[in-house]
């Protein structure tokens, strides 16, 4: 019953962060950026790879044994201790996150940014990984708060030390919003605890379905929704996201805009399929509306920007909108579509942001603003080819994985009979085509600005190339992911299995 494997994806990055801090050398004392951290960087990459291997092992074991893997730290039985639960949803999302995080460290290794030579960069990157993984694997609501805070702190500091001179401002804005989100989460924790006397998610789910007429329950649902909306930058709480994702270092912004925003998506999936099953229709109706608003707003915002990284940040608003609409439709195929979309979007968006960052690193002034990078693509054809494939994937054109996610999404919409929202989403997805083509034209087709010349050296393309390879292979050989997502959706449809695995008996 006590499966230690669930602990590994959380504990390996955390231990790795502590050791990496020791490997930081003298730079830690005087706070200077210096180039002595190759050992530290290699260590961080090794820790992240080990962690990815353990999470893959967890995923394989969970899908083979077809029951959630549960670990009760300290030997305390379920409702009293904190449980770590790896069901198929958590395991899939953890594998996705850690694969992208490995690519992030690879990008940082080949990056020309000053920030990656900062002695606390890799430790913070690993604590970011810990926070994200832990928040997805924990089975306790208060523990989720703790891991989410770890994630927020690491992300904030990583952005505040960015090369971009507006990094600190953007980090401040984000941190302010996140403190409000944690305030919402704590209020939800308090409301649920006073009403049901437990914080274990499985136990809560059991007690909520037994007694749904508690006055504080709607308050708790609203607070939890607000929390996850801030985490995922969903429409009314979105305004910090483009600033924050543009100003952070490329290696970090590729993580923030791809996997970190998926924490909110995970939260919505857990809310509708485990905690508040009976109240789910109201939540889903809200998610459909917010999703459509996000798709339209994010698409228009992406068209209106003058910076490639900022455009991709706005595009994340739109893509998260697609996922929310799928969660809102809520039947088995739509949930599978949401999971496939989540997985694929992480790979695509991380690759595209890294490519935009690689272009920016070769610009005369280090920025991804279209005014500066226009025409610079002439001297980097490889980056252009990768960006083209990534852009096609974002739009949803075969043979990329973006096509698979859009196809499953639209098919689930037809089967669910949700023609109004389907039409809105379909029309709005044309916006993706507009902004991706425009960015490609500006950077690779137009003549360069007078006197502007690309630097000979820039960030390494290894990490985005690997991600694009994954994008293509998941597009050509989509069956494993689609089957995995369908199995996950089936699990989500029967929360009893989760509850029984955690509480035992």
């Amino acid at each position, binding site marked *: 019953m006590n499966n230690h494997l669930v602990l590994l994806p959380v504990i390996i990055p955390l231990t790795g962060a502590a050791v990496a801090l020791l490997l930081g050398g003298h730079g830690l004392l005087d706070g200077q950026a210096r180039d002595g951290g190759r050992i530290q960087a290699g260590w961080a990459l090794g820790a992240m790879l080990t962690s990815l291997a353990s999470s893959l092992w967890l995923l394989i074991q969970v899908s083979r044994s077809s029951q959630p893997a549960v670990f009760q730290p300290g030997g305390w039985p379920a409702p009293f201790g904190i449980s770590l639960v790896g069901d198929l949803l958590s395991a899939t999302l953890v594998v996705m996150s850690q694969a992208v995080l490995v690519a992030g460290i690879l990008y940082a290794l080949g990056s020309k940014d000053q920030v990656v030579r900062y002695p606390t960069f890799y430790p913070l990157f690993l604590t970011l990984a810990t926070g994200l993984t832990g928040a997805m694997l924990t089975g306790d609501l208060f523990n989720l708060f703790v891991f989410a805070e770890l994630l927020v702190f690491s992300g*904030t*500091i990583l952005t505040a030390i960015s090369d971009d001179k507006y990094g600190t401002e953007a980090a401040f804005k984000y941190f302010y919003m996140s403190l409000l989100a944690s*305030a919402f989460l*704590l209020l939800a*924790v308090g409301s649920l*605890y*006073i009403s049901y006397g437990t914080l274990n998610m499985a136990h809560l789910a059991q007690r909520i379905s037994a007694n749904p007429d508690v006055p504080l329950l709607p308050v708790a649902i609203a607070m939890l929704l607000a929390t996850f909306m801030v985490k995922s930058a969903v429409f009314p709480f979105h305004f910090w996201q483009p600033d924050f994702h543009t100003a952070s270092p490329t290696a970090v912004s590729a993580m923030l805009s791809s996997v970190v925003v998926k924490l909110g998506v995970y939260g919505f999936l857990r809310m509708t399929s485990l905690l508040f099953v009976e109240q789910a229709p109201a939540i889903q109706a809200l998610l459909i509306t917010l999703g459509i608003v996000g798709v339209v707003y994010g698409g228009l915002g992406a068209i209106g920007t003058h910076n490639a990284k900022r455009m991709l940040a706005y595009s994340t608003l739109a893509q998260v909108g697609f996922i929310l609409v799928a969660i809102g439709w809520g039947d088995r195929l739509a949930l599978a579509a949401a999971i496939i979309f989540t997985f694929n979007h992480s790979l695509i968006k991380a690759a595209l942001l890294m490519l935009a960052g690689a272009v920016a690193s070769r610009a005369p002034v280090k920025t991804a603003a279209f005014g500066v990078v226009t025409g610079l693509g002439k001297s980097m054809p490889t980056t252009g080819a990768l960006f083209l494939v990534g852009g096609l994937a974002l739009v949803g054109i075969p043979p990329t994985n973006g096509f698979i996610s859009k196809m499953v999404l639209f098919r689930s919409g037809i089967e669910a009979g949700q023609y109004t929202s389907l039409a809105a989403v379909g029309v709005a997805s044309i916006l993706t085509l507009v902004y991706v083509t425009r960015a490609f034209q500006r950077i690779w087709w137009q003549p360069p600005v007078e006197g502007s010349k690309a630097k000979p050296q820039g960030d390494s393309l290894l990490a985005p190339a690997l991600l694009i390879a994954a994008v293509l292979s998941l597009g050509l050989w989509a069956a494993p992911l689609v089957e995995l997502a369908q199995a996950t959706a089936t699990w989500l449809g029967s929360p009893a299995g989760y509850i029984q695995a955690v509480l035992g008996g």
Partner: protein
Amino acid sequence: MELLTAIAVGALFSIAIFQLLRRNVIRSAIGLILLSSAINLFLLSTGAYRGVTAAYTDGVGQKSDALPQALILTAIVISMGGIALVLSMLYIVSARYRTSDLDEVTGLRH
């Protein structure tokens, strides 16, 4: 006592939100500090009125719930770290713009 706690939580929340929305950076930081106190008090009240003797002692009667205190302890530590981080970032931002008015911090407006 319950009424008093409820009034205190409500008052703290209203003052905190009012201060949060001010433009002055110091006032908004004070708003955050008050907000975290309000939430801690709220969390404390979730377990404060159920028991009559301390947990893990030999006293008679209903034992009080120790969990909310553990939650608050964690939340206090986290919010302390968070406020330290906010203040340090405020220091950098206000030194760069030589102002304490958040409306004059305009670097991110595109």
